[in-house]
């Protein structure tokens, strides 16, 4: 029962993260929301695996915990190259 409450809390945070991702003025706000969303998905998957009683599905949350960093670093690298290329410093 408590897991249902925890997963609802995480779902609400995900909605807030999406609101920040869509509203976010600068690129870095969006990237922050993407990063936060990734960690919350890992949390939510772990809690749901527990909620459904299939505890051997935690590999999924482990996969997200590991791979979430790649997307954020790729965007940073791309944005860094773009700034080196034409030097526009401010976010869009």
């Amino acid at each position, binding site marked *: 029962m408590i897991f249902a409450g925890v997963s609802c809390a*995480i779902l609400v945070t995900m909605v807030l993260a999406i609101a*920040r991702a869509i509203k976010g003025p600068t690129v870095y706000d969006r990237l922050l929301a993407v990063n936060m969303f990734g960690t919350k998905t890992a949390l939510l998957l772990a809690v749901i695996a527990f909620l459904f009683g299939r505890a*051997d599905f935690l590999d999924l949350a482990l996969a997200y915990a590991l791979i979430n*960093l790649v997307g954020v670093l790729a965007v*940073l690298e791309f944005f860094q190259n773009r700034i080196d290329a034409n030097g526009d410093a401010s976010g869009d």
Partner: protein
Amino acid sequence: MIEWLLIVVDIVSWILLIIGSICVLIGGIGVLRMPDFYSRIHAASLTDTMATLALFSGMILQAGFSLAAAKLFAIMLFLLLTGPTATYALANSALLSGHKPKAAVLEKKVE
């Protein structure tokens, strides 16, 4: 004796889970309401570390001594490793690319 211990473990894990979900909510609201990028990143990293710690330790207590507990510990470890790194890389490249924090902008007005 054992049965009394189980109740205590249950209560502790429930408290931890509640603390975790409250932290997650606080972080989420903080990300939306904070005025400036650098304060938002502060709120977001709260959910990254505090909520992960509380939620996963609560779940490990619930899982008892099993493979699931080991997997949960591994997930917690990697989340605590990658979360702050991503936040650091984000803030570092924001600062390097000249994204001024709001406070600095206000100071200039004051002088």
